């Protein structure tokens, strides 16, 4: 599908543009990774070296002390991992199912209220009550404070994803639905048996969006899960490690290292590495589907 690269004769300007492209893209790509390397580098640096020389990509004085302390008491990190993984898996499966079902139903030409309901959903992107009433609703009226449901439920669906699914399923001819109907299949059976298998690329893309949303979720967690909760989603856990002194104090007590000897900075970085590392290793494989999904969506318009 690429713009054809055969050329009659490569002239100077074109060569220059190409060379510039390699340099610019290369540098930009480098800028995208370097900051992560600083985090990794710092996590392996001796604390004294940080206070003296500041952060660096390459550790001047190598040390794994920060990791030792982080892993001295791994329960919290493991618990956070479990919470985040559960939220992501459950949220993605349920959310994907609901989004797919709604998207499919909303484009069926024989569904009379489809425009009304579409507008009902779409309107919420135009006008909203804002965060304060939302906060009161979850906290006081639904009573979901300190409940993982407060994080799980609001992320299940979004108008954007439903509209995306709607335009994906529109490419499936309605005749398929109709012929299945004549054969006596119910709407739900048609959806499960026929439509879902035919929309796998769309499901993969939308599922990735939902999963990424849950994995990186910290906003609702911060609003609705208080500090008393033992296991918090990974990003909130990380946020607390980075910003609060309590965590450092607790780990210093737990690991019998005096507070003044605690590797403050390198520990923050080490926790960040432990919390994000696996995802970063995993992401190049997932990224391919993202690019495909966006490409398909963009070409279809």
């Amino acid at each position, binding site marked *: 599908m690429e713009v054809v690269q055969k050329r009659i004769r490569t002239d100077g300007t074109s060569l220059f*543009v190409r060379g510039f492209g390699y340099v610019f893209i290369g540098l930009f790509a480098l800028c995208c990774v370097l900051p992560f390397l600083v985090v990794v580098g710092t996590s392996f640096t001796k604390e004294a070296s940080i206070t003296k020389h500041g952060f660096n990509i390459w550790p001047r004085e190598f040390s794994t002390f920060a990791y030792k302390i982080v892993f001295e008491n791994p329960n919290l990190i493991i618990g956070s991992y479990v919470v985040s993984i559960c939220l992501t898996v459950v949220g993605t499966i349920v959310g994907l199912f609901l989004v797919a079902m709604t998207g499919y139903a909303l484009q069926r030409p024989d569904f009379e209220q489809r425009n009304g309901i579409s507008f009902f959903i779409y309107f919420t992107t135009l006008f909203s009550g804002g965060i304060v009433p939302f906060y009161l609703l979850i906290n006081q009226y639904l009573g979901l404070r300190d409940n993982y449901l407060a994080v799980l439920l609001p992320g299940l669906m979004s108008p954007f994803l439903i509209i995306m699914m709607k335009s994906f399923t529109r490419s499936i001819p309605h005749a398929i639905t109709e012929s299945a109907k004549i054969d006596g299949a119910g709407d739900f059976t048609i959806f499960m048996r026929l439509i879902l298998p035919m929309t796998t690329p769309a499901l993969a893309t939308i599922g990735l969006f939902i999963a990424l949303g849950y994995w990186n979720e910290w906003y609702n967690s911060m609003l609705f899960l208080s500090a008393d909760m033992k296991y918090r989603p990974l990003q909130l856990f990380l946020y607390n490690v980075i910003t609060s002194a309590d965590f450092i104090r607790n780990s210093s007590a737990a690991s019998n290292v005096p507070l003044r000897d605690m590797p403050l900075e390198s520990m923050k970085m080490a926790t960040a590495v432990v919390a994000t590392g696996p995802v970063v290793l995993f992401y190049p494989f997932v990224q391919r589907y993202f690019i495909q999904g966006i490409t398909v969506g963009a070409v279809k318009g």
Partner: protein
Amino acid sequence: MLMCLPAIIFFLIFAYLPMPGLYLAFIKYNYTDGIFHSKFIGMENFRFLVMTGDLWRLTFNTIAYNLGFIIFGNLLQIFVAILLNELRKKWFKKVSQTLMFLPFFISFVIIGLIAYNILSYDYGILNNILKSLGADPVKTYSNGHIWPFIILITYLWQSTGYGSIVYFAAIMGLDSEVVEASEIDGANALQRIRYIVLPWLKPTFIILLLFSLGGVLRGNFGLFYNLVGANNTALYATTDIIETYVFRSLMNNFNFSMGSAVSLYQSVFGFIVVLSANWLVKKASPDNSLF
């Protein structure tokens, strides 16, 4: 069709149920009295916001940042997409795309940490470099003037890899025969970009531009909150946006009414902006308008 029922219930609860809560904007909310027994004060909250100048500052910051994001973001994305298309080596394209995509996959918490790595007064890389050059270190976290640049750069850093894919996909949809023909006629890369690729990208650009205009009053809360923190008073003048203000009124000052007043203002004003943007889309290309 029962299949829509879950969605209807979902949006009813999480999107429509909070809407009457905007009544909060017109009362002096008091926790013990609850929403319906607190004192009704009409437009008093709004009057306060205008008088203190908060509303003007929030509106200005939110819109200015978003316009910066939209303009520079799109330009850089197009630029990167075009350059990517010029490259010949497949592996280089793949690797660089993967690397550029990385920041999009990372939570704002990590991005905040990275910013701290670079900007911190005592240990930050920026000051390391300045010091080694013999210059004076900068007190980043108390100097408001440099934050618009920091926030814009972070935004570009995070979103360009992802955003350029849309344009890259659009370029791939370009008819290769047109390109070949231009090459036979002796057009060089710059001419090809100028006369074929750019005009081809124009509709995509316009649509994306107008859609993003609709959200011009919505802030990128995660970005601002994790970079700046919600409580850095020294930076309010240049970094406070509607979302951070509302968040503060909720979590720190417990001033629910003031927060709601700002939200209501944002919703109503935003609604008008969306309608205008849609009107513009309709004029530019009738097929792509929202309604």
